[in-house]
Protein backbone atom coordinates (compact mmCIF):
# COMPACT_ATOMS: atom_id res chain seq x y z
CA UNK A 1 0.00 0.00 0.00
CA UNK A 2 1.33 3.44 -0.90
CA UNK A 3 0.76 6.19 1.62
CA UNK A 4 0.39 9.65 0.18
CA UNK A 5 1.65 12.35 2.52
CA UNK A 6 0.14 15.70 1.78
CA UNK A 7 2.46 18.68 1.97
CA UNK A 8 1.04 21.49 4.13
CA UNK A 9 -0.22 24.40 2.06
CA UNK A 10 2.34 26.98 3.27
CA UNK A 11 5.25 24.60 2.55
CA UNK A 12 3.83 23.94 -0.86
CA UNK A 13 3.66 27.67 -1.51
CA UNK A 14 7.28 28.19 -0.40
CA UNK A 15 8.39 25.20 -2.45
CA UNK A 16 6.72 26.54 -5.57
CA UNK A 17 8.04 30.05 -4.97
CA UNK A 18 11.59 28.72 -4.60
CA UNK A 19 11.29 26.79 -7.84
CA UNK A 20 9.89 29.88 -9.57
CA UNK A 21 12.70 32.08 -8.20
CA UNK A 22 15.28 29.54 -9.33
CA UNK A 23 13.74 29.47 -12.80
CA UNK A 24 13.91 33.23 -13.19
CA UNK A 25 17.32 33.38 -11.49
CA UNK A 26 16.01 35.49 -8.60
CA UNK A 27 17.56 33.32 -5.92
CA UNK A 28 21.02 34.37 -7.10
CA UNK A 29 22.82 36.48 -4.55
CA UNK A 30 22.61 40.15 -5.44
CA UNK A 31 26.10 41.60 -5.72
CA UNK A 32 26.13 45.32 -6.42
CA UNK A 33 29.44 46.59 -7.74
CA UNK A 34 30.51 50.21 -7.37
CA UNK A 35 32.34 51.17 -10.54
CA UNK A 36 33.76 54.40 -11.91
CA UNK A 37 36.86 56.53 -12.29
CA UNK A 38 39.46 56.90 -9.57
CA UNK A 39 38.31 59.61 -7.10
CA UNK A 40 34.71 59.62 -8.31
CA UNK A 41 33.60 58.80 -4.75
CA UNK A 42 32.90 55.06 -4.86
CA UNK A 43 34.26 54.31 -1.40
CA UNK A 44 32.62 57.42 0.06
CA UNK A 45 29.31 56.15 -1.30
CA UNK A 46 29.99 52.61 -0.06
CA UNK A 47 30.76 54.07 3.39
CA UNK A 48 27.57 56.17 3.35
CA UNK A 49 25.53 53.09 2.45
CA UNK A 50 27.09 50.81 5.05
CA UNK A 51 26.90 53.58 7.67
CA UNK A 52 23.20 54.11 6.89
CA UNK A 53 22.27 50.44 6.94
CA UNK A 54 24.93 48.65 9.04
CA UNK A 55 26.34 51.46 11.16
CA UNK A 56 29.97 51.04 10.01
CA UNK A 57 32.18 52.15 7.12
CA UNK A 58 33.60 49.76 4.49
CA UNK A 59 36.95 51.32 3.55
CA UNK A 60 39.40 54.19 3.68
CA UNK A 61 39.03 57.29 1.58
CA UNK A 62 41.60 59.90 0.59
CA UNK A 63 42.24 62.77 -1.80
CA UNK A 64 44.97 60.77 -3.56
CA UNK A 65 43.66 58.87 -6.60
CA UNK A 66 43.71 55.05 -6.48
CA UNK A 67 43.27 54.90 -2.69
CA UNK A 68 41.21 51.74 -3.22
CA UNK A 69 43.57 49.34 -4.95
CA UNK A 70 41.81 46.09 -4.30
CA UNK A 71 38.21 44.99 -4.25
CA UNK A 72 36.42 45.31 -0.88
CA UNK A 73 33.28 43.39 -0.20
CA UNK A 74 30.64 43.98 2.44
CA UNK A 75 28.22 41.11 2.69
CA UNK A 76 24.56 41.19 3.64
CA UNK A 77 23.55 44.84 3.40
CA UNK A 78 19.82 45.13 3.72
CA UNK A 79 18.08 48.31 2.71
CA UNK A 80 14.38 48.96 3.08
CA UNK A 81 12.61 51.46 0.94
CA UNK A 82 8.93 51.88 0.18
CA UNK A 83 8.28 48.70 2.20
CA UNK A 84 10.53 46.76 -0.15
CA UNK A 85 13.64 45.04 1.14
CA UNK A 86 16.79 44.75 -0.92
CA UNK A 87 19.37 42.31 0.37
CA UNK A 88 22.77 42.50 -1.30
CA UNK A 89 26.57 42.49 -1.06
CA UNK A 90 28.47 45.69 -1.83
CA UNK A 91 31.53 45.21 -4.01
CA UNK A 92 33.67 48.37 -3.89
CA UNK A 93 36.11 48.24 -6.81
CA UNK A 94 39.26 50.24 -7.63
CA UNK A 95 38.72 53.07 -10.12
CA UNK A 96 39.10 52.11 -13.76
CA UNK A 97 41.53 54.11 -15.88
CA UNK A 98 43.45 53.54 -19.12
CA UNK A 99 46.68 55.10 -17.80
CA UNK A 100 48.63 55.36 -14.57
CA UNK A 101 51.56 57.70 -14.23
CA UNK A 102 53.31 57.49 -10.88
CA UNK A 103 54.43 61.13 -11.27
CA UNK A 104 50.84 62.26 -10.66
CA UNK A 105 51.03 60.85 -7.13
CA UNK A 106 54.13 62.93 -6.33
CA UNK A 107 51.90 66.05 -6.33
CA UNK A 108 50.15 64.62 -3.26
CA UNK A 109 53.39 64.47 -1.27
CA UNK A 110 54.22 60.79 -1.75
CA UNK A 111 57.86 59.80 -2.08
CA UNK A 112 58.99 58.46 -5.46
CA UNK A 113 59.09 54.93 -4.12
CA UNK A 114 55.63 55.21 -2.55
CA UNK A 115 54.27 56.68 -5.78
CA UNK A 116 55.73 53.85 -7.88
CA UNK A 117 54.41 51.27 -5.46
CA UNK A 118 50.94 52.84 -5.57
CA UNK A 119 51.04 52.87 -9.39
CA UNK A 120 51.98 49.19 -9.52
CA UNK A 121 49.21 48.25 -7.09
CA UNK A 122 46.73 50.41 -9.00
CA UNK A 123 47.36 48.50 -12.26
CA UNK A 124 46.59 45.25 -10.46
CA UNK A 125 43.48 46.80 -8.89
CA UNK A 126 42.13 47.82 -12.30
CA UNK A 127 42.59 44.27 -13.62
CA UNK A 128 40.74 42.94 -10.56
CA UNK A 129 37.90 45.45 -11.05
CA UNK A 130 37.47 44.39 -14.68
CA UNK A 131 37.44 40.71 -13.68
CA UNK A 132 34.64 41.44 -11.20
CA UNK A 133 32.39 42.49 -14.09
CA UNK A 134 31.83 38.75 -14.59
CA UNK A 135 30.50 38.39 -11.04
CA UNK A 136 28.40 41.44 -10.20
CA UNK A 137 24.65 41.27 -10.73
CA UNK A 138 23.98 45.02 -10.49
CA UNK A 139 26.14 48.12 -10.70
CA UNK A 140 26.22 51.68 -9.40
CA UNK A 141 28.34 53.60 -11.89
CA UNK A 142 29.70 56.49 -9.85
CA UNK A 143 30.46 59.56 -11.97
CA UNK A 144 32.09 62.75 -10.66
CA UNK A 145 29.54 65.41 -11.68
CA UNK A 146 32.27 68.07 -11.82
CA UNK A 147 34.07 66.23 -14.65
CA UNK A 148 33.32 65.35 -18.27
CA UNK A 149 31.33 62.08 -18.05
CA UNK A 150 32.07 61.01 -21.62
CA UNK A 151 35.32 59.19 -20.93
CA UNK A 152 36.60 55.91 -22.30
CA UNK A 153 36.48 54.24 -18.87
CA UNK A 154 32.78 55.13 -18.41
CA UNK A 155 31.94 54.11 -21.99
CA UNK A 156 33.77 50.78 -21.58
CA UNK A 157 32.06 50.02 -18.26
CA UNK A 158 28.59 50.85 -19.64
CA UNK A 159 29.19 48.95 -22.88
CA UNK A 160 30.17 45.86 -20.90
CA UNK A 161 27.18 46.14 -18.57
CA UNK A 162 24.79 46.47 -21.51
CA UNK A 163 26.41 43.56 -23.35
CA UNK A 164 26.13 41.39 -20.21
CA UNK A 165 22.60 42.64 -19.46
CA UNK A 166 23.63 43.78 -15.96
CA UNK A 167 21.23 46.46 -14.64
CA UNK A 168 22.89 49.69 -13.52
CA UNK A 169 22.20 53.13 -12.09
CA UNK A 170 24.41 56.11 -12.89
CA UNK A 171 25.23 58.02 -9.71
CA UNK A 172 26.02 61.68 -10.42
CA UNK A 173 28.17 62.30 -7.35
CA UNK A 174 29.61 65.45 -5.74
CA UNK A 175 26.57 67.64 -6.44
CA UNK A 176 27.51 69.64 -3.34
CA UNK A 177 30.34 71.24 -5.34
CA UNK A 178 29.48 74.46 -7.22
CA UNK A 179 31.00 73.28 -10.52
CA UNK A 180 28.95 70.04 -10.52
CA UNK A 181 26.42 69.47 -13.29
CA UNK A 182 24.19 66.41 -13.07
CA UNK A 183 22.37 67.71 -16.20
CA UNK A 184 25.53 67.21 -18.27
CA UNK A 185 25.48 63.51 -17.29
CA UNK A 186 21.76 63.17 -18.02
CA UNK A 187 22.19 64.83 -21.40
CA UNK A 188 24.94 62.46 -22.57
CA UNK A 189 23.28 59.32 -21.17
CA UNK A 190 19.55 60.09 -21.65
CA UNK A 191 18.58 56.43 -21.93
CA UNK A 192 19.84 55.56 -18.42
CA UNK A 193 18.70 56.24 -14.85
CA UNK A 194 20.83 59.06 -13.40
CA UNK A 195 20.55 59.95 -9.70
CA UNK A 196 22.31 63.11 -8.49
CA UNK A 197 23.74 62.77 -4.96
CA UNK A 198 26.42 63.95 -2.61
CA UNK A 199 27.85 60.78 -1.06
CA UNK A 200 29.95 62.90 1.29
CA UNK A 201 26.98 64.75 2.79
CA UNK A 202 24.39 62.00 2.33
CA UNK A 203 22.36 64.35 0.11
CA UNK A 204 19.66 62.69 -2.03
CA UNK A 205 20.73 59.20 -0.97
CA UNK A 206 17.03 58.41 -0.41
CA UNK A 207 16.46 58.84 -4.16
CA UNK A 208 19.36 56.53 -4.84
CA UNK A 209 18.02 53.80 -2.52
CA UNK A 210 14.65 54.14 -4.22
CA UNK A 211 16.28 53.77 -7.66
CA UNK A 212 18.24 50.72 -6.44
CA UNK A 213 15.05 49.05 -5.19
CA UNK A 214 13.35 49.80 -8.53
CA UNK A 215 16.26 48.65 -10.67
CA UNK A 216 17.71 45.69 -8.78
CA UNK A 217 14.79 44.15 -6.92
Amino acid at each position, binding site marked *: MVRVIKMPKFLKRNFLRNIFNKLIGKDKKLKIGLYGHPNSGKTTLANTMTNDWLGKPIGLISEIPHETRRVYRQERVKIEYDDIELDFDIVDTPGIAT*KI*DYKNFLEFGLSEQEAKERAKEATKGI*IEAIKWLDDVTGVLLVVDATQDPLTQANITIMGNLEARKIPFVIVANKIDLPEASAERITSVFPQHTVVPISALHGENTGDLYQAMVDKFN
Partner: protein
Amino acid sequence: MDSSDTNALKMDFVSSEALKESSSMEKISMIVDKVKEGDLLVIEGGLTPTEEAELIETTMREIDIENFVGIDIYTLEKDKSSFFGLSKKKAIGITIIGPANVMKTVKKRENFLSMIANLGDSGASMH
Protein backbone atom coordinates in the same frame (compact mmCIF):
# COMPACT_ATOMS: atom_id res chain seq x y z
CA MET B 1 60.40 53.82 -38.08
CA ASP B 2 60.66 53.74 -34.33
CA SER B 3 58.99 57.01 -33.30
CA SER B 4 60.20 56.68 -29.70
CA ASP B 5 63.78 57.44 -30.86
CA THR B 6 62.90 60.68 -32.62
CA ASN B 7 60.83 63.77 -32.19
CA ALA B 8 58.47 62.52 -34.87
CA LEU B 9 55.04 61.01 -34.43
CA LYS B 10 54.21 57.93 -36.42
CA MET B 11 50.53 57.55 -37.23
CA ASP B 12 49.03 54.35 -38.57
CA PHE B 13 45.62 54.35 -40.25
CA VAL B 14 43.96 50.96 -40.20
CA SER B 15 40.85 50.19 -42.23
CA SER B 16 38.06 48.05 -40.81
CA GLU B 17 38.70 45.67 -43.70
CA ALA B 18 42.25 45.07 -42.44
CA LEU B 19 40.95 43.98 -39.01
CA LYS B 20 37.98 41.97 -40.23
CA GLU B 21 39.78 38.64 -40.10
CA SER B 22 41.70 39.36 -36.85
CA SER B 23 40.70 37.76 -33.57
CA SER B 24 40.16 40.01 -30.53
CA MET B 25 43.50 38.91 -29.11
CA GLU B 26 45.30 39.73 -32.37
CA LYS B 27 43.70 43.18 -32.52
CA ILE B 28 44.61 43.97 -28.92
CA SER B 29 48.21 42.72 -29.28
CA MET B 30 48.64 44.80 -32.44
CA ILE B 31 47.27 47.93 -30.73
CA VAL B 32 49.33 47.55 -27.55
CA ASP B 33 52.54 46.71 -29.46
CA LYS B 34 52.22 49.78 -31.69
CA VAL B 35 51.25 52.14 -28.87
CA LYS B 36 54.14 50.91 -26.73
CA GLU B 37 56.47 51.87 -29.59
CA GLY B 38 55.04 55.39 -29.37
CA ASP B 39 52.77 55.16 -32.43
CA LEU B 40 49.33 56.67 -32.74
CA LEU B 41 46.69 54.46 -34.27
CA VAL B 42 43.62 55.62 -36.14
CA ILE B 43 41.24 52.74 -36.66
CA GLU B 44 38.17 52.74 -38.85
CA GLY B 45 35.31 51.54 -36.65
CA GLY B 46 35.70 50.51 -33.05
CA LEU B 47 36.28 47.70 -30.62
CA THR B 48 33.51 45.74 -28.92
CA PRO B 49 32.92 46.48 -25.21
CA THR B 50 34.57 43.17 -24.31
CA GLU B 51 37.59 44.04 -26.46
CA GLU B 52 37.80 47.48 -24.83
CA ALA B 53 37.86 45.86 -21.38
CA GLU B 54 40.51 43.39 -22.56
CA LEU B 55 42.54 46.26 -24.02
CA ILE B 56 42.50 48.07 -20.65
CA GLU B 57 43.45 44.84 -18.87
CA THR B 58 46.35 44.17 -21.27
CA THR B 59 47.50 47.79 -20.98
CA MET B 60 47.59 47.48 -17.19
CA ARG B 61 49.77 44.38 -17.48
CA GLU B 62 52.14 46.19 -19.86
CA ILE B 63 52.56 49.40 -17.83
CA ASP B 64 56.16 49.46 -16.65
CA ILE B 65 55.97 52.67 -14.57
CA GLU B 66 59.05 54.28 -16.17
CA ASN B 67 58.51 54.03 -19.94
CA PHE B 68 54.92 53.11 -20.67
CA VAL B 69 52.21 54.78 -18.59
CA GLY B 70 49.19 53.57 -20.51
CA ILE B 71 46.95 54.59 -23.36
CA ASP B 72 44.36 57.15 -24.29
CA ILE B 73 41.40 56.20 -26.45
CA TYR B 74 38.96 58.52 -28.17
CA THR B 75 36.15 57.74 -30.54
CA LEU B 76 34.13 59.70 -33.04
CA GLU B 77 30.62 58.43 -33.48
CA LYS B 78 28.25 58.51 -36.39
CA ASP B 79 24.52 57.89 -36.75
CA LYS B 80 23.59 54.45 -37.91
CA SER B 81 20.11 53.85 -39.21
CA SER B 82 18.40 50.52 -38.84
CA PHE B 83 14.94 49.07 -39.46
CA PHE B 84 14.64 50.87 -42.79
CA GLY B 85 15.75 54.14 -41.22
CA LEU B 86 13.10 54.07 -38.50
CA SER B 87 15.45 53.97 -35.51
CA LYS B 88 18.77 55.75 -35.23
CA LYS B 89 21.66 54.32 -33.27
CA LYS B 90 25.16 55.62 -32.69
CA ALA B 91 28.03 53.64 -34.15
CA ILE B 92 31.75 54.24 -33.78
CA GLY B 93 33.19 55.83 -36.90
CA ILE B 94 36.83 56.27 -35.92
CA THR B 95 38.88 55.17 -32.91
CA ILE B 96 42.11 56.94 -32.01
CA ILE B 97 44.47 55.17 -29.63
CA GLY B 98 47.85 56.43 -28.56
CA PRO B 99 50.35 56.53 -25.71
CA ALA B 100 48.95 58.50 -22.75
CA ASN B 101 52.11 60.61 -22.45
CA VAL B 102 51.83 61.69 -26.10
CA MET B 103 48.10 62.44 -26.33
CA LYS B 104 48.02 65.54 -24.19
CA THR B 105 45.03 67.71 -24.92
CA VAL B 106 41.93 66.31 -26.45
CA LYS B 107 38.80 68.32 -27.08
CA LYS B 108 35.77 66.44 -28.17
CA ARG B 109 32.54 67.77 -29.55
CA GLU B 110 29.94 66.10 -31.69
CA ASN B 111 31.55 65.18 -35.02
CA PHE B 112 34.82 66.85 -34.05
CA LEU B 113 37.93 65.75 -32.22
CA SER B 114 40.99 67.90 -31.63
CA MET B 115 44.26 66.64 -30.21
CA ILE B 116 47.63 68.08 -29.29
CA ALA B 117 50.41 65.51 -29.38
CA ASN B 118 53.27 66.13 -27.02
CA LEU B 119 56.63 64.97 -28.39
CA GLY B 120 59.18 65.69 -25.73
CA ASP B 121 59.98 69.40 -25.93
CA SER B 122 58.19 69.93 -29.21
CA GLY B 123 54.47 69.78 -29.86
CA ALA B 124 52.30 68.77 -32.80
CA SER B 125 48.67 69.58 -33.32
CA MET B 126 46.13 67.59 -35.26
CA HIS B 127 42.41 68.11 -35.82
